[in-house]
C-alpha cells in the first residue's frame, strides 16, 4: 500500500493505481472522459488535471501512479480553473444537440458542464467546425462525429478488448474525427455494443435503443444475463414492465465492464411473444385457463398416474431456488425415479469458451447450479435420453418439463416430438411461445421470466450471483417455484414458499454446496461457491 494525501485527506492506495482511483477512495470524483477502469491509460481529455506538490505543472491524475508521500491538491483554484477551461475547449465545437441526443441524461459532458458553470459560450455559433452526423456504422452503431470529444475510449476498446481495430482516429487538428475506414459498417465484432456504453458523450449511440426512451424515465434493476453460462452482471433498464436495454454492470471477477452483443440483444426474449396466462388443452388447441383449473388438472393427473409413471425434467434456465424446489417436488412429493435436468447436453460444455472473451458454449445460465444441487446425474448417457426412451415405450403418463429447452435446444427435434406425442399428459412451464408448444403440451404454465423473479444463478466459474426483480410478471405468469409449491400443497405436502431471497437463505441452510452463503452476503457481485475452484475470466 502507498500512502498519500489528497486535499488534506490521507489515502492508502494499492501500488500501481493512479491518483484518480485513489481519489475515489476518499470520495473525490475527478472529472474525466478518456479514463476507463478496464482500458489502458491515455490522458487525452485533460479533464482530470490536478496539482501535485513539487511538480511545476498540473498533472493528469489518470496517468499518474500513486507514490509515497505524494501531496495531491484537487480543489486548488488553478487546477479547477484549468479543468473548467479544458471543458470549454471540448465544448467549442460541440453541437447543441441535447434535445435529440440519446446520451442526454447520462452524459458526462452535460454533468461537468452543469458542475463547472461557464454557461455562456464565447464561441460564435456560426464559427463551429461541423462534421458528419448520423453515420450508419452497421447493425448496431450510429456515429455522430460532431459530438465526439476524441477521448479514444472506443478506439482503445477495439484495440485492447475486442481486437477488431474497427474504430480509428482520422485526420488531424480541429478536423480530427472518429470513424471506420471509408465509413464502412462494422462487421465481425461481437462486442461492439460496448463502445456505446463507454462513450462518455452521445457520439456513439445504439441503433437498437436509439430514440426508444429518454434515459431519465427508465428504472434500473441489478441482474445477471442468462444467455450463457458466463453470467455477465447486467443492469436492466425498464419502464412500465417493459425492458428497454441491458447494460453491463462492472464485476471485476466475471465480465469486467463488458458483455457480448448476443447477450445484449437477449432482452427481447423477455418481451416478445410471451405466454401471458396458463393454458389447457381442449381438443386440438390450447385455450386460456385459470391457475386453479390448470393446477387442479395437473395435480389430479399426477396423483392418478402414480410415482413410476411421472417424469420430471428440470431446467438449466431456472434459478437455483426454483431448481431446489423442483428437486423437492420430484423426490419428496411425487417420489418419481424419472428425474433429470440434462435437457440438451449443455452441462458438458459449461466451462468452454465460445469466443476469446466472455461467451461460453453452454447457452444456459445455471447448469453449474443444477450440478451443485445434485440434479445432474453422472453416468447414464449425456442427456434425458433415458426419459425420452421411457416416453417412447409408453411408460410415462405425465411428463412435467420445467422449461422449453427440450423443444428448442436439441438437435434431434423429431425424436423429442415423437416421444412427447406418446405421452398422454405433457406439462410445460413456458416463458415464451416455442415451435411445437401448441401441438405437444396439454397444460402450459405461464412462467415468469428471469427479470420478474428474485433468484440466484451459478455461473461457469462457480460463482453464485443474484438477479433482482425488475418488475412483476407479465399477465398472469407466475414463477415456477411458486407453481410447484402450490401443486405440492394440492398433493398433500408442503414445500417452502416465498421470495427468492428467503428461498435462497433456506436452501443455503440445508444444502452443503451452498453452506455459509446468505442472500445479503452475496452482495452485488456474487460469491464463489464454497469449495469451488477459484477461476478467472477466460479460463
Amino acid at each position, binding site marked *: 500500500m502507498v500512502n498519500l494525501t489528497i486535499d488534506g485527506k490521507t489515502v492508502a492506495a494499492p501500488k500501481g493505481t493512479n491518483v484518480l482511483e485513489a481519489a475515489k477512495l476518499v470520495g473525490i470524483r475527478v472529472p474525466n472522459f478518456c479514463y476507463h477502469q478496464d482500458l489502458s491509460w491515455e490522458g487525452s481529455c485533460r479533464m482530470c488535471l490536478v496539482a501535485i506538490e513539487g511538480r511545476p505543472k498540473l498533472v493528469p491524475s489518470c496517468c499518474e501512479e500513486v507514490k509515497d508521500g505524494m501531496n495531491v491538491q484537487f480543489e486548488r483554484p488553478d487546477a479547477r480553473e484549468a479543468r473548467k477551461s479544458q471543458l470549454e475547449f471540448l465544448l467549442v465545437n460541440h453541437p447543441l444537440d*441535447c*434535445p*435529440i441526443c440519446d446520451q*442526454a441524461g447520462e452524459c458526462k459532458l452535460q454533468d461537468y458542464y452543469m458542475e463547472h458553470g461557464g454557461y455562456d459560450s464565447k464561441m460564435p455559433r456560426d464559427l463551429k467546425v461541423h462534421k458528419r*452526423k*448520423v453515420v450508419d456504422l452497421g447493425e448496431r452503431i450510429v456515429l455522430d462525429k460532431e459530438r465526439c470529444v476524441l477521448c479514444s475510449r472506443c478506439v482503445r476498446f477495439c484495440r485492447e478488448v475486442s481486437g477488431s481495430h474497427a474504430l480509428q482516429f482520422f485526420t488531424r487538428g480541429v478536423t480530427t474525427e472518429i470513424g471506420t475506414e471509408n465509413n464502412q459498417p462494422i462487421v465481425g465484432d461481437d462486442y461492439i455494443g460496448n463502445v456505446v456504453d463507454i462513450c462518455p458523450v452521445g457520439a456513439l449511440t445504439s441503433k437498437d435503443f*436509439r*430514440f*426508444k426512451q*429518454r434515459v*431519465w*424515465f427508465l428504472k434500473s434493476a441489478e441482474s445477471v444475463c442468462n444467455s450463457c453460462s458466463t453470467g455477465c452482471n447486467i443492469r436492466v433498464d425498464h419502464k412500465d414492465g417493459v425492458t428497454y436495454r441491458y447494460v453491463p454492470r462492472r464485476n471485476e471477477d466475471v465480465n469486467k465492464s463488458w458483455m457480448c452483443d448476443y447477450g445484449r440483444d437477449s432482452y427481447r426474449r423477455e418481451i416478445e411473444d410471451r405466454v401471458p396466462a396458463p393454458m389447457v388443452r381442449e381438443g386440438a388447441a390450447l385455450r386460456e385457463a385459470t391457475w386453479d383449473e390448470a393446477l387442479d388438472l395437473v395435480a389430479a393427473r399426477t396423483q392418478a398416474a402414480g410415482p413410476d409413471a411421472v417424469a420430471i425434467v428440470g431446467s438449466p434456465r431456472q434459478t437455483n431456488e426454483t431448481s431446489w424446489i423442483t428437486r423437492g417436488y420430484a423426490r419428496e412429493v411425487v417420489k418419481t425415479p424419472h428425474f433429470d435436468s440434462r435437457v440438451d447436453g449443455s452441462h458438458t460444455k459449461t466451462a468452454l469458451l465460445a469466443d476469446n472473451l466472455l461467451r461460453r458454449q453452454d447457452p444456459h445460465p445455471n447448469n453449474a447450479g443444477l450440478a451443485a444441487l445434485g440434479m445432474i446425474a453422472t453416468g447414464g448417457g449425456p442427456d434425458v435420453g433415458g426419459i425420452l426412451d421411457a416416453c417412447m415405450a409408453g411408460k410415462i403418463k405425465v411428463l412435467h418439463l420445467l422449461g422449453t429447452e427440450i423443444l428448442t435446444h436439441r438437435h434431434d427435434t423429431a425424436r423429442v416430438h415423437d416421444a412427447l406425442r406418446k405421452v398422454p399428459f405433457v406439462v410445460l412451464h413456458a416463458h415464451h411461445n416455442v415451435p411445437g408448444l401448441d401441438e405437444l403440451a396439454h397444460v402450459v404454465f405461464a412462467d415468469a421470466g428471469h427479470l420478474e423473479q428474485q433468484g440466484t444463478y451459478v455461473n461457469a466459474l462457480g460463482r453464485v450471483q443474484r438477479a433482482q426483480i425488475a418488475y412483476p410478471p407479465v399477465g398472469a405468469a407466475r414463477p415456477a417455484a411458486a407453481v410447484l409449491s402450490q401443486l405440492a400443497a394440492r398433493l398433500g405436502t408442503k414445500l417452502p414458499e416465498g421470495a427468492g431471497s428467503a428461498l435462497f437463505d433456506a436452501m443455503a441452510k440445508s444444502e452443503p454446496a451452498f453452506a455459509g452463503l446468505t442472500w445479503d452476503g452475496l452482495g452485488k457481485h456474487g460469491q464463489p461457491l464454497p469449495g469451488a475452484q477459484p477461476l478467472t475470466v477466460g479460463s
Partner: protein
Amino acid sequence: MSDTTSNVVYTPIPRPKSRIPLRPEALAPVAPPPPKAGVTPKHAPASERPSYFLTVMGLVVTIKNFFRSAASRKADPTIQYPEERRQYSPRFRGIHQLTKRQDGTLKCVACFMCATACPAECIMIEAGEHPNKQYEKYPVRFDIDMLRCVMCGLCVDACPEEAIIMTQDYEMSATTREQTVYPIALLADRKQLETTPAGYRPRYEPGPPLVR
C-alpha cells in the same frame, strides 16, 4: 455548499420571560355564553333589530340593470355564444398546437421535454428516425390526452424548439373518450387553427414570423 451549512449548529433563541405576572382570573375557566334566541325579540334595542334598507338598495341595483340591459344590448354582459365570441388575452392557454418549419415538417424533435415537465402526464410521444438526416429525430406519435391536461402551459415553457404552443381555441367537447386524445393530425392540422389566434407561447414581440 451543503458541507459548510451542515457544520452550523442551530441553537434556539431563548424566549424572554414575561414581566407581566399572570392574573389568577385569567386562568379561571370561561363561562359559556348565554344560549342564543332563535328569533330576535321585538322588544330588542333598535341596534339589534334587522334593517331592510340595504336589502332594498341591492334590489334597486338588480332591477336597474335588468331594465338597462333590456333597453340596450351593449350593456348586456351576456354574449350570444357561438355566434358571438369573447376577446381573450394573447396569453390565453387553450388547446395546444404543434408548429411547423417553413418546409411544412413538424418542428418537434421528440426530445420528451414537454412530457417530462408535464405535471398531469398527459403527453405521450413515440420518437423515430427522420427520413431527412438533417432533422434526425421526429415524433412518430404525439398524443395529448385533453381529459388529463390541466392547461398549465409548462410544456410550452419546456420546449426548446418552440414546437408546442397554445392557441386561443377552447372548444374541445367530444362524445367519446377516445376523441379527447389529440393526435398529431389534430394538434398540427385541425381546421380551427385557421381562424383562432395563437395563445400562450414563448415569444410575443415581433421577430421572425412564427410559422403556424
